[in-house]
């Protein structure tokens, strides 16, 4: 460590030998005379970096929205029994969501999209998943290519390592959820720990189990403990076991908890003897009603639930188990279930995109889907999800949460 301290001091001392060229000031003045302003306020308000970023994001979303201006696409189901559908795919699309007058695109303020995502990803390439915060998501920029060419691309996010994977070995960080105050709840082995994103303070374990799902206030944590689903009331220290009709060969592969901590949704996967996915379904129950599971729209395979703040449940739909030798559960479409009516509306994920991770923003305005190095955002408008395009490109994402 002392060696490093000395290396840094030597490096600084060598850099301190750099002196300004006497003509440097003249070059600066020359630049000021020749170059246009970097950022021009266009609406009377200061154009700081954050606002400039939002303008870039807004422009990107306008482009995407223009491409899907015909409204949310109603997907046909790749498989399934039409009689089980609440709305068959071959019926006329229902009324489109609220749109800006004359534009055909939903009235979505891109500035409401959270600036950061917490993800489980092997950031340093040591083979151990790290817990990281990705900031500056959804910013497009010109990326230099060979021979002086440029292409429009997604700017790499700012990555802050919250918990290095090497800090928790031999255990592994497997999944994460985030409370409204930014505290990340992450599973390490069979325990759940927390890290305060603002100061890096780690605490735990705060609960037993895996696949944590945390309420908005961080005071209710649902986890998978063995074959059980447990809900921990943190202030009271009381735990409730939810009876989810366990069947041999099935496992709970995803959990979500409503913002108020009163409802839990689980993805249940049943596997055949060789490990391939035989069935996937999502069911919801109230924590106060541990046996009251009600299944959601399962004929095409529904999974990856994410509670929204407005009483909807966002879902991944379609094409489950279609990859990794049919052992990995993936969804290829997104949808929204209205928990009050049971209606499910779904939209095409776009471009053959399939995903294994799904989460909603704390305010319920956005959901994202992640897989294979891409995080894609969807705007939630009146019970519909609108594809807003790729917001992050980063290889090796195992899990993520807003």
């Amino acid at each position, binding site marked *: *460590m002392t060696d490093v301290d000395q290396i840094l001091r030597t490096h600084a001392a*060598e850099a301190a030998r750099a*002196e*300004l060229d006497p003509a440097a000031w003249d070059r*600066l*003045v020359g630049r*000021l005379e020749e170059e246009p302003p970097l950022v021009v306020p266009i609406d009377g308000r200061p154009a700081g970096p954050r606002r400039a970023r939002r303008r870039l994001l807004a422009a990107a979303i306008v482009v995407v929205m223009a491409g899907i201006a015909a409204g949310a696409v109603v997907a046909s189901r790749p498989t399934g029994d039409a009689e089980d559908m609440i709305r068959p795919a071959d019926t006329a699309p229902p009324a489109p969501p609220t749109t800006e007058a004359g534009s055909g695109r939903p009235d979505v303020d891109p500035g409401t999209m959270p600036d950061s995502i917490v993800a489980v990803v092997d950031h340093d390439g040591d083979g151990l998943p790290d817990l990281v915060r990705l900031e500056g998501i959804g910013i497009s920029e010109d990326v230099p290519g060979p021979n002086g060419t440029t292409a429009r691309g997604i700017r790499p996010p700012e990555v*802050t390592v919250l918990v290095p994977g090497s800090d928790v070995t031999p255990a592994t960080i497997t999944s994460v959820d985030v409370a409204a105050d930014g505290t990340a709840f992450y599973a390490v082995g069979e325990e759940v720990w927390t890290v305060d994103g603002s100061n*890096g303070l780690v605490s735990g374990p705060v609960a037993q189990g895996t696949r944590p799902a945390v309420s908005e206030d961080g005071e209710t944590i649902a986890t998978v403990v063995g074959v059980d689903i447990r809900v921990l009331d943190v202030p009271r220290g009381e735990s409730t076991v939810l009876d989810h009709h366990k069947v041999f060969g099935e496992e709970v592969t995803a959990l979500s908890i409503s913002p108020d901590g009163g409802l839990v949704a689980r993805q249940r996967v049943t596997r055949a003897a060789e490990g391939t996915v035989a069935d996937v379904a999502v069911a919801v129950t109230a924590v106060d009603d541990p046996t009251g599971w009600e299944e959601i729209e399962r004929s095409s395979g529904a999974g990856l639930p994410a509670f929204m703040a407005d009483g909807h449940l966002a879902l991944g739909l379609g094409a489950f188990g279609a990859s990794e030798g049919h052992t990995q559960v993936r969804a290829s479409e997104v949808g929204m279930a209205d928990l009050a009516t049971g209606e499910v509306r779904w939209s095409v994920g776009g471009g053959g995109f399939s995903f294994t991770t799904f989460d909603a923003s704390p305010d319920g305005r956005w959901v994202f889907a992640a897989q294979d190095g891409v995080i894609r955002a969807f705007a939630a408008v009146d019970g519909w999800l609108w594809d807003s395009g790729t917001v992050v490109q980063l290889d090796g994402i195992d899990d993520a949460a807003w």
Partner: protein
Amino acid sequence: VVDESLSADGIEGLRAAYDVHARPLLRLAVALTGDAALGEDLVHDAFVRLHRSATPPAPGAEGAYLRRIVTNLAHDHHRHGAVVRRLAPTPADPAPSAELAAIGGDRARAVAAAVAVLPERQRDCVALHYFGGLTDAAVATELGISVGSVKTHLHRARAALALSLEDHR
């Protein structure tokens, strides 16, 4: 848009800030990039942004403002450099520049690159403490975090750099 940035008052104010901050900023930029010419470019970028800012920093806060811009620009340079290196053909014999050689050659480049890939907070703490010459308390004030957090970030940064700079010790 009328650009009033080159008014006499504006230039005089900028010159005053330049006289005070340009040299320490250059040293910070050179330490962060390992390249004196690039360092000057980044420093000038920072002053251009200061001069054209719609919300200039409060009097007395110019130094922190400029250090933040230089640090971010250096980070952007490394990230864009990584993209360019990934996409562009590799030169047959990449020779270090005279500036690099003047401040330590490969080691300077290695130190700058290793610092550049540190997590943001650790990178900021290293840049301000080692290259900006700020005390832990001054770093804490500038970043709006506690002195204890600064010490923690510096400790973690040194641990990470100990691994990445193993060949240069």
